[in-house]
């Protein structure tokens, strides 16, 4: 359903909702995956992101997102300088991710406090984004709702157990997705919630001994 405020908005730093605002949102979501500003990042740009990225400030927007700036934050313009000043090591490369990848796609490999994440994300137009792969797991993350992501040993009843915990904490589930690379291997779970899940829900999930790690991601748009 189209909302008036989708049309008169968003407030954003120009020049392009896909190449600037969307890129910033990808950075913000990826930042959430490592729980804060990464110290190191390798940013590979594909397709139109590689071709017209600089003119559209895609590099600044991605770096700004990793730094925690939102799409309407004027500091995006100076994000590369800020990154250098803070001693962060972000490197940009051009690449071809795959022939059928969306034209506005990037792969980010980020590192913070010993934690590493590799993510593929695309900017779909009008500022909407989708992360399609995290650490090799196929995912579908849009950042339009508060989201819990976790990696757990693949075992029976895990989905029900986690749904149960969230129900106890009165967190409303919007969607839940499970993906795994191989049967019996680890599973990646993406849980979108109607409201921010809160620290106690996260702690309860983290407490399960078959859960390897868990993060809660703020919504980054729409």
């Amino acid at each position, binding site marked *: *359903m*189209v*909302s*008036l*405020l*989708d*049309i*008169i*908005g*968003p*407030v*954003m*730093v*120009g*020049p*392009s*909702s896909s190449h*600037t*605002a969307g890129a910033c949102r990808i950075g913000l979501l990826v930042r959430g995956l490592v729980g804060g500003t990464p110290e190191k990042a*390798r940013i590979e*740009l594909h397709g*139109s992101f*590689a*071709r*017209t*990225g*600089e*003119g*559209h*400030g*895609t*590099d*600044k927007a991605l770096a700004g997102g990793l730094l925690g700036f939102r799409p*309407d934050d*004027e500091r*995006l*313009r100076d994000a590369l300088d800020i990154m250098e000043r803070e001693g962060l090591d972000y*490197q*940009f*490369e*051009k690449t071809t991710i795959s022939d059928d990848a969306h034209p506005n796609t990037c792969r980010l490999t980020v590192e913070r406090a010993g934690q590493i994440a590799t993510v593929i994300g695309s900017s779909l*137009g*009008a*500022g909407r984004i989708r992360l399609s792969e995290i650490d090799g797991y196929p995912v579908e993350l849009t950042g339009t709702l508060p989201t819990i992501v976790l990696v757990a040993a693949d075992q029976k009843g895990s989905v029900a157990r986690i749904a149960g915990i969230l129900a106890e904490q009165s967190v409303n589930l919007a969607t839940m997705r499970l993906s795994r690379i191989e049967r019996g291997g680890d599973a990646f779970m993406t849980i979108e919630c109607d409201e921010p899940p809160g620290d106690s829900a996260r702690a309860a999930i983290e407490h399960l001994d078959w859960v390897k790690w868990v993060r809660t991601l703020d919504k980054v748009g729409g």
Partner: protein
Amino acid sequence: MYKSLADAIRDAEASGRTLSATALALESKDQGRTVEDIRGALRRALEVMRGAVERGLEGDLRSASGLVGGDALLVARSSAGPMSNTLFSDVLARALAVQEVNAAMGVIVAAPTAGGAGVLPAVLTGLARNRGIGDEAVIDALATAGLIGAVVAERASLSGAEGGCQAETGAAAGMAAGAATEMLGGTPTQVGHAVSLTMQGTLGLVCDPLGGLVELPCVFRNATGSALALAGIEMALAGITFAIPVDEVIDVMGEIGRNMDVRYRETAGGGLAATPTGRRLAKERLVQIRTAPR
């Protein structure tokens, strides 16, 4: 939101309300937010729009390629033209100003998109200043613009990559014309004609930015789009009716967009982008992302 402007106009006239009141009531129901809350968000949008107009008129901004910037001030200061120092030239200057801010990574309101973000602020704030219209009426006009844009999004497209520039600056001009017509006291039916009279003039407009960047012709297309909106407002308030119903005008814009060659849909493969000079400038000025040494 409504999927047909004819339906919205019919509901507004039947209840004796404006289109903005009709749209705000439905938005409130759709989104579960109060009308005051929605108007608050629109008020913030108006503040950002005004900020962008002012910032651009300072005249010192340049885009990443250096191809655009500083022209809003030229128009604002000029007394050489037949329309200098009138509402018309003020609206042109405002449209250029917002797009110059956008191209220089300043803050704008994407309305309906970043590429077409200059038209609505230019027409509404220019007219408000000229006629001494208060903010509340401008905020209502933004709701009407949102309604028109939502119908275009639903029936056609608001993306240059999908529908050419008729879907971006063309839609923006239709939104601005309809919104301003209500702000100036036009009836809901006249709002519909203002949209049609404006958008018929942008049908077929291609999206052909140099190097694929939202700079050239985008900045100027916001100015000419605003001029078309002023023409549409003038004709609609004079009582001109357009024989093709507004929903059909919007539908055909979508159809033309779908049939448009991909070269004319933001790919820089055709139009101004593919002229000899367009290609040369894109090559010379397109700055490249600093990549790590291999």
